[in-house]
């Protein structure tokens, strides 16, 4: 269970949100909606602990995430606007270095299975910067199926993905939720039925 208590965040003298509280249970998909500049990304970054709120706290299973970082990060997968892949490394290198950092050990054939799933067969040795934007996104997303994380926090995961990619991701979201996972995602296009049931949380733009 992920809980936000009384979060306040201001950027450049503009308050994005104030006293925001929010609870997301296991087996739940929260779809965060809001116009550009409403503070979706800021909220997600606070929920991951990457940035700190001006007031309030984030709790995972009742424990403040700043107190048990290792425990929270063991269960967390976060994908932001930046893909977290190095352009001069191949998809395979990027993934294996990332998996090692996150202490996930995966047999080689699983790695290839996932690459096949996201449609990157034959491209695994190409430096990532030579791939198209959508393919780069797929490299970043393939971590979803590699790290057994309970909490997914996805910031605009559908950017640059084609129809098939969007569908694959939505189906995986549904599957993850039915397995007791917890997802918080933002997107400018609304989620389709493939993503399953979801709760919408609107973030108002404030002046």
């Amino acid at each position: 269970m992920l809980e936000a208590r009384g979060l306040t965040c201001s950027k450049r003298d503009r308050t994005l949100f104030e006293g925001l509280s929010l609870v997301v249970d296991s087996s739940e998909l929260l779809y965060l909606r809001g116009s550009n500049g409403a503070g979706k990304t800021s909220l997600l970054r606070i929920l991951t602990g990457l940035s700190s709120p001006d007031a309030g706290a984030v709790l995972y299973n009742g424990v403040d995430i700043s107190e048990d970082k290792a425990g929270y990060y063991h269960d967390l997968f976060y994908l932001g606007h930046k893909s977290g892949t190095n352009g001069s490394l191949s998809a395979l290198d990027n993934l294996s270095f990332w998996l090692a950092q996150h202490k996930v050990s995966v047999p080689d054939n699983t790695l290839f299975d996932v690459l096949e799933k996201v449609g990157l067969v034959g491209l695994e040795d190409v430096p990532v910067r030579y791939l198209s934007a959508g393919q780069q996104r797929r490299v970043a997303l393939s971590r979803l199926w590699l790290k057994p994380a309970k909490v997914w926090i996805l910031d605009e995961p559908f950017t640059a993905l084609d129809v098939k990619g969007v569908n694959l991701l939505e189906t995986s979201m549904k599957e993850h939720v039915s397995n007791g996972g917890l997802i918080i995602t933002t997107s400018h296009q609304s989620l389709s039925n493939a993503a399953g049931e979801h709760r919408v949380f609107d973030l108002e733009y404030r002046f």
Partner: protein
Amino acid sequence: MSLYKGIFKRDMHIAFKQKAELVQPLMFLTMVVTLFPLGVSPSPDTLQRIGPGVIWIAAILSSLMAMERLFRDDFQDGSLEQYMLSGMALPAVSAVKVTVHWLVSFVPLFLLSPLLAMFLNLTVDMYIALVLTLLLGTPLLSLIGAIAVGLTVGLQKGGVLLALLLIPVFIPLLIFATSAVDSAALQLPYHAQLAIIAAMLLLAAALAPFAIAYSLKVSQN
């Protein structure tokens, strides 16, 4: 431990894939050094007198060029976020990254140093002193530089600001390093200068990783 070895391997791998960035600062350094005989005076005595200072100044300037590489790519492509979310100790990650940076940007300088010493007519004693000061001083450049890189990495055009922040900080190092080589030229002992540089290095090695980690965290906000 193997975690940090993984980062070491990754960074080495990336550094050797970007060979241009590896070679450019070294070429810059060599060129700056060769400008002095042309611009100041080609007389062997003058060169010998200004030599140590020239090599040190050129090393500092060229290190500024390579410094930004330390965290720039990782910040821009989001790898830094992923490090922070992996539960690894950020000071240790920073220490590993600084080590890699020192190995790839300064170790080639040592290979180049006999050539530079010959350009500037340094005696053997002076050369030994120079190498010793570089050996103790360049890790200090990397460690202190990394703090400033951490602070400026989030800015759009941090390059010049980085130089403005760092050059004043490097002045004490420059003074003690060149004074050591000057003493060596006069056949005087220079242990004191080396000891001071070593003390600065030890202090930086103990504290800088924490400062770097903090500055990186700040730049994420």
